[in-house]
């Protein structure tokens, strides 16, 4: 028999905004549920190192799923006639529907980039449900710095341009193997999906007006930002932390925007203490 990884992948269907969405999910481990949300334009493969990390999976049931339209999850029927655009409400409903369909009790939720931003929304609105939230590269407000229309047009290869745009977000110290694996996920995204996700990340999902209302005594908030992240910069993460009383901040030196996939070994140094703290709470 091959030396299988401990990850198990399965499919199931949830209904979001009345539409059936066939979802692909991977999980490994036992213990406290740890739901992982991928970045804009990518998929749950970003979490494969966490899913295979026994230090984590001996205490946490790590669950990572592809959002509809991403990875191996389908777009809803009739997608051809609709431009994909992720709104805050759609994103929240998708994640909560997933968690409830999975019968998760008091899970931890960790997201990166747009996923990180969403966890802050959930810390406010679902504080009783989530044990704690971990926002990787997930500041509550960002400033767009390029024209999103470049990401989806017939004279530019969508996969190549998405990868080329986000390659700037990876730290130069990150191992080449994982840099290019992270970019490969972007090269494989569906047409217009990264652009549609960035509608949430750059426009609809701004949250700085509400983030001060998060009560970290009900739902602890951890904010982590990579030194080389040029969208969710360390400064923006610190600004976010100043608006959320009790939020705990970690600046990850030598890291970019994709900590779990661009440099999984270095990421352990930052995520282990947080998971230990959650475990001991």
């Amino acid at each position, binding site marked *: 028999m091959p030396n299988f990884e401990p990850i198990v992948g399965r499919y199931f269907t949830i209904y979001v905004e009345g539409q059936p969405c066939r979802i692909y999910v991977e999980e490994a481990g036992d213990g406290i549920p740890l739901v992982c949300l991928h970045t804009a334009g990518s998929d749950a493969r970003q979490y494969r190192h966490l899913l295979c990390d026994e230090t984590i999976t001996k205490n946490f049931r790590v669950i990572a799923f592809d959002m509809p339209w991403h990875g191996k999850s389908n777009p809803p029927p009739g997608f051809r006639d609709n431009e994909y655009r992720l709104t805050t409400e759609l994103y929240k409903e998708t994640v909560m529907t997933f968690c409830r369909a999975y019968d998760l009790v008091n899970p931890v939720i960790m997201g990166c980039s747009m996923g990180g931003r969403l966890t802050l929304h959930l810390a406010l609105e679902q504080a009783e449900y989530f044990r704690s939230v971990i926002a990787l590269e997930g500041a509550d407000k960002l400033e767009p710095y*390029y024209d999103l229309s470049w990401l989806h047009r017939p004279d530019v290869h969508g996969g190549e*341009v998405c990868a*080329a745009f986000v390659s*700037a977000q990876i730290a*130069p110290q990150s191992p080449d193997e994982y840099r290019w694996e992270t970019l490969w996920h972007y090269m494989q995204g569906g047409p217009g999906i990264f652009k549609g996700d960035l509608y949430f990340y750059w426009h609809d999902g701004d949250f700085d007006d509400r983030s001060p209302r998060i009560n970290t005594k009900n739902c602890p908030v951890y904010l982590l930002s990579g*030194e*080389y992240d*040029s*969208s969710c910069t360390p400064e923006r993460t610190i600004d976010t932390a100043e608006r959320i009383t009790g939020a705990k901040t970690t600046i990850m030196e030598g890291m970019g925007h994709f900590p779990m996939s661009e440099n999984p070994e270095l990421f352990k140094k930052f995520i282990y203490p947080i998971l230990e703290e959650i475990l001991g709470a």
Partner: protein
Amino acid sequence: MVLNKLKDQVNGNKALTERGKWVSLSFTFGIDNDDYLISIKNGKITQIQKRNLATESGIFAIRAAKSTWIEHWRCIPKRDFHDIWSMLPKQLITLDGNLLPLIQNLQFFKDLIASPRDGKD
């Protein structure tokens, strides 16, 4: 002068020139107030010359301060200087002209411009 070596560094990188085999154009590369025209044919640099006349123009232009390029070309640049797309939000570079061929071949141009990184810091 870094640009003196750029042609050999790029043309000696087979993987890079192969990826750029569909690129044939001239673009403007600015260092402080000086512009240079970098001409490419099928992914290889054919000529780098200082721009002397206003009528000499590349299809697009990328410009930054000399100090910015020096930092960009370090083995491990400081954050914000490590990639031309990370320089954008900090306004460390300017882009002008027809950006379509740049965007169509963005990783190629990023790697071409970063070629002077020699692994030594």
